[in-house]
């Protein structure tokens, strides 16, 4: 069980890094590598999308390997994170629409917020059951 779990964790880590790398290539490639070539840009985005789907499958496989308490901790953290992301995301968007904040609302800030929320929820929940 432990060996299988480690394998699935490494697979998830590999697909996550691969997704981040392909995202970076799709983001900076058009400007710095292939001079805005439409086919290459579309291809890079499709490769990134395929990587993302494989990352989700790896995440699901890893999640199914967790035991009942670990699943509960993750599910609670995901639920809270989803709620926070919707509430703060819409407020952030509204602040932008009403021109209360300078500049445009960036999706990257929301992604960072989701990551930090999930990490914090996991820490709190793990301590609760320790």
């Amino acid at each position: 069980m432990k060996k299988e779990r480690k394998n699935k964790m490494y697979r998830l880590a590999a697909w996550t890094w691969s997704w981040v790398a392909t995202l970076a290539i799709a983001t900076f490639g058009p400007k710095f590598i292939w001079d805005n070539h439409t086919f290459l840009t579309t291809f890079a985005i499709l490769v990134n999308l395929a990587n993302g789907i494989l990352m989700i499958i790896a995440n699901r496989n890893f999640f199914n390997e967790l035991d009942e308490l670990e699943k509960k901790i993750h599910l609670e953290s995901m639920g809270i994170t989803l709620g926070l992301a919707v509430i703060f995301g819409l407020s952030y968007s509204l602040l932008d629409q009403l021109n209360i904040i300078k500049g445009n609302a960036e999706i990257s800030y929301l992604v960072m917020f989701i990551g930090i929320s999930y990490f914090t929820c996991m820490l709190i929940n793990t301590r609760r059951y320790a």
Partner: protein
Amino acid sequence: MKNRIKVLRAERNMTQEELADIISVSRQTINAIEKEKFDPSLPTAFRISKLFNLPIEEIFFYQEAESVKER
């Protein structure tokens, strides 16, 4: 829900890690069950019962919450 897992484990000189490996859960889960912070699922309770060769009701004791008792 109260339980006697810690006592039963100690009687058999078993560590949390060993028990966790046998019933296919993490050591943290065994620790949380022993400290009564987490109630195991029915399959896990049956695996524990089978391992200690005791009926489930001799390992786990259901206690009604105070709010339920007051009704």
